[in-house]
């Protein structure tokens, strides 16, 4: 099989001592990032990107480091969900529903082990799915012309706005805000500046890393100052780690089903891991015959969202690598990493840089095994991390962001711009305007405009060209449905609230 020989090449890349060390380091950092409430996977990955550059890593190494962090964060998010009833990151919200009741019933270590195994199953299956599906999708993506890409970008925005947000107008506005910011700077085809207001710093455009770190990390500091670091978590105790074989055996079917659901949810552009864990939980609750214990500490209610969330994390890499369209906030940050490394995701990546793609896949398989070890027998170490109080964590995150951005460009202007984005992020979050579409807009804005303009060059300015291929029409229909349908489905998709602690 072609896949296996390519994967063997990938292992040759991934098994060098440097990359192996980076994968392990990434897994450890990632699990901590996931475990700490107040440091979600997107902030965590975002503030680490500038530092990864300063290490002088090559493209493959940087990508392996950051995707290990990404996978690790998906594992780590469950720890505080189970022990504290505070999701360590957004996708881990569903894990609080049954994880915390299990912990209250004195079964915290069982819940941690079970969810660690479920995470492993989900992530492993998704990585295998990624290995087979991504090259196939890359082959299909060869057929895409500019009008298909334009419709695809639109699809990403509309599913993100439709599914991941609860207010369509605000999500659409956020996407426009991002697109408008992306327009700032030199126009690729005419070489003229746009919307710079005569400011030379803005001629290069707004660096998306500055925007991401500002919107995600700096705004978090403002949020925490407002909340006085309420969600602090000192004094968590954990009894001896034992392996609950019975629960694992009983929820094995759950894990497989949840992985499939999560993987599919992850592939949908714009949907991501939160949707994956949500659908996996709700699907499992509907599937099992006796669901009376769900929400009261059913082990299957712990296994389902964790398998779903990790499978979705792997699934979200499929559109990111093959089409350049991220499936979630964190994959958007990973896309920013690729773009900064001068790697253009898409079908050409698979033929021209196979060492990057397959090195990454092999590294993900290795990372998963490392993560299983870190998250089951060694989970105690990460439980200790939870007791870092927010008044040390948040200033630390903030200082790391500043130094990271400063080390990229060495300019005051970028630091000030980052603060502006932080402030903007604070107000937007207060007004319930999602920030992920803004990031997506800044990342994809120029590509989206280019594809529109290239399509019009091909058609000589005939706008009907946008709707001429079957694939494009399919994307348009999916985009409109993805944006509108949740309005009607919202009643059924209402997210259950976490228990009061």
């Amino acid at each position: 099989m072609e896949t296996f020989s390519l994967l063997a090449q990938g292992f040759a890349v991934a098994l060098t001592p440097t990359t192996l060390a980076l994968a392990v380091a990434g897994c450890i950092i990632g699990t901590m990032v996931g475990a700490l409430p107040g440091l979600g996977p997107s902030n965590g990955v975002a503030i680490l990107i500038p530092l990864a550059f300063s290490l002088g890593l090559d493209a493959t190494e940087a990508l392996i480091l950051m995707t290990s962090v990404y996978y690790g964060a998906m594992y780590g998010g469950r720890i505080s969900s189970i022990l504290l009833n505070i999701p360590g990151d957004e996708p881990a919200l569903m894990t609080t529903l049954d994880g915390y009741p299990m912990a209250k019933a004195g079964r915290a270590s069982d819940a941690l082990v079970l969810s660690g195994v479920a995470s492993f199953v989900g992530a492993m299956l998704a990585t295998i799915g990624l290995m087979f599906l991504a090259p196939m999708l890359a082959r299909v993506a060869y057929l895409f012309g500019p009008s298909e890409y334009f419709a695809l970008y639109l699809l990403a925005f509309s599913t993100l706005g439709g599914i991941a947000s609860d207010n369509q107008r605000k999500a659409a506005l956020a996407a426009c805000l991002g697109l408008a910011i992306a327009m700032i700077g030199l126009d690729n085809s005419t070489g003229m500046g746009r919307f710079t207001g005569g400011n030379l710093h803005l001629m290069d455009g707004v660096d998306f890393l500055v925007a991401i770190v500002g919107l995600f990390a700096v705004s978090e500091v403002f949020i925490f100052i407002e909340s006085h670091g309420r969600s602090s978590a000192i004094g968590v105790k954990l009894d001896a780690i034992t392996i609950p074989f019975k629960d694992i055996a009983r929820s094995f079917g759950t894990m497989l089903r949840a992985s499939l659901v999560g993987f599919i949810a992850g592939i949908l552009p714009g949907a991501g891991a939160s949707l994956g864990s949500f659908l996996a939980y709700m699907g499992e609750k509907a599937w099992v015959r006796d669901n009376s214990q769900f929400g009261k500490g059913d082990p299957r209610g712990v296994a389902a969202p964790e398998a779903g969330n990790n499978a979705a994390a792997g699934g979200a890499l499929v559109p990111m690598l093959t089409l350049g369209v991220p499936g979630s906030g964190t994959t958007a940050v990973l896309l920013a990493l690729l773009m900064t490394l001068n790697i253009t995701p898409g079908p050409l990546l698979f033929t021209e840089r196979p060492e990057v793609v397959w090195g990454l896949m092999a590294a993900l398989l290795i990372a998963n095994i490392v993560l299983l070890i870190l998250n089951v027998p060694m989970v105690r170490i990460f439980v200790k991390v939870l007791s870092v109080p927010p008044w040390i964590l948040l200033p630390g995150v903030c200082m790391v962001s500043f130094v990271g951005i400063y080390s990229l460009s060495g300019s005051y202007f970028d630091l000030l711009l980052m603060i502006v984005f932080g402030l903007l992020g604070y107000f937007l979050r207060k007004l319930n305007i999602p920030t992920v579409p803004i990031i997506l807009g800044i990342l994809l804005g120029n590509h989206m405009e280019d594809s529109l303009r290239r399509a019009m060059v091909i058609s000589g300015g005939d706008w009907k060209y946008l709707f001429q291929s079957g694939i494009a029409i399919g994307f348009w229909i999916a985009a409109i449905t993805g944006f509108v349908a949740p309005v009607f489905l919202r009643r059924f998709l209402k997210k259950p609230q976490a228990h009061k602690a």
Partner: protein
Amino acid sequence: MSDRLFGLIVLIASVAYFMAAANIQTGFLVDPVGPKVFPRLVSAIAALCALLIMLKPDDEPAWPGMSTWFKLLLALLVLVAYAYTLKPLGFLIPTAVAAGVLSFQIQSRLVPALLTGIGLSAGLFILFKFALGLSLFAVPRSWMGG
């Protein structure tokens, strides 16, 4: 009310953005769409969203009280000052001050804030300088005779 005000600001900004697109120079090579259409499209959609938000605002968010606003303003000033002093004053002092103030803003106790500032400053310096090899200056360059 907040949503209405926000919608109004966005509406004004989108109109300004739309107008500003007129100033874009087109250059010699012009494709059928040109550099003005897409930004105008985006600002038009943004204006539409802003109108819809104003027409159907969400519930009022829980805004913080005056004392918290003051804290946030102070945090903002600290961050701006940090951005300006990081280069001329070296890493250690601005980082210690900024981290200490931010820490105090979150938990309002002096001694832990002081320790956080000093600890983070020294710890991060060691991490950045020696583990990651960033070129940072510990103290103002003039102190080192250069």
